[in-house]
């Protein structure tokens, strides 16, 4: 349900705001909930992928990247969904362990930035929703 308070909130423009608002019916609580769930799941899978990369388990990393890839989109960050798509293509070439490690380490910083963006936005929305309606 959209309220006057929610209308006053400005989402960080790094997100695809129109898409996010439409997908979640302009409901800030729903957006906050999905940001929290998605960031947790992406972070968990990223940790697993980094461990799997040490073993060079290409297929399992590819499966996990594929699984969480749409979560970036559900959070309104299509550019990171595309990054994961490119990673999936890369893993589809069955690279050796060294190439997987190098590539994941190259991407790691930007992925963490994306996760921080999501986490910070979820906190900001949470704080905003705690404020009494004026």
């Amino acid at each position, binding site marked *: 349900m959209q309220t006057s308070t929610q209308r006053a909130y400005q989402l960080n423009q790094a997100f695809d705001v129109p*898409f996010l608002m*439409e*997908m979640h*019916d302009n409901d800030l609580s729903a957006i906050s909930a*999905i940001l929290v*769930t*998605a960031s947790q*799941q992406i972070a968990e899978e990223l940790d697993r992928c980094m461990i799997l990369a040490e073993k060079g388990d290409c297929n399992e990393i590819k*499966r996990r990247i*594929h*699984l*969480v*890839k*749409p*979560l970036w*989109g*559900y959070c309104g960050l299509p550019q990171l*969904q595309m990054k994961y*798509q490119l990673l999936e293509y890369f893993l589809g070439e069955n690279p050796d362990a060294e190439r997987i490690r190098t590539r994941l380490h190259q991407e790691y910083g930007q992925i963490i930035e994306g996760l921080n963006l999501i986490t910070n936005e979820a906190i900001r929305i949470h704080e905003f929703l705690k404020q009494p309606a004026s």
Partner: protein
Amino acid sequence: MKITAVIVEDLSVAAEMLQRYCVKSGRVNVIQSFSSVETALPFLSEQVVDLIFLDVEMPGASGFDLLDKLSYSPQVILTTSKTEYAYNAFEYNVTDFLKKPFTYQRFIDALGKLREEAEKREEADDISHIYIKSDGKLIRLENDDILYIESMGDYVKFITNEKKIITHNTIKNLTSKINPAVFCKVHRSYIINMNKISDVRENMLYIKGQMIPISKANRTMVMSRLKII
């Protein structure tokens, strides 16, 4: 009346979002949600549904494997994050293809296509014959003349009382085109005319002395269509 549907999707966020859209539309009743083909298949072999929201890449079997194993042809809306599956979607005659994530409006557009597809299927239910292309001409076959249809890779063989006709087609494609009241897919390589079965023994059925296998996945559906008294 609401459409009965199941969701087969391994990403819980996507499944929840889809469920929410279905409720919001007021047109779709999701009776069950599964995270893999292996868990969905036993349910779908027992329960006929109007629609499946189907992810393609899941751990274990893929969404297309599920469609291969189903003995009936519900309407299917593919939900995937890879556009590369569009060609397969066409091959499997799916009703629509939703790229994750998608908006509510895009979801509603897909439901709109269901109505058109349902109308086409209702027309197919009334048809007593089909035309097939063979030797550069269109040949009319009455449903009642067809005993069964056998897959031969990219071709299929129509076996009638009097002749065998080979044509370029697939069992997958035919499943959605033929009259479902008369025909039934009993195996990934066979569609049979239910009215022509002479007897059934364990995992085999016989039509005019020809032995036809019934796959494990299709057995429940086939048995449920026999009028056993």
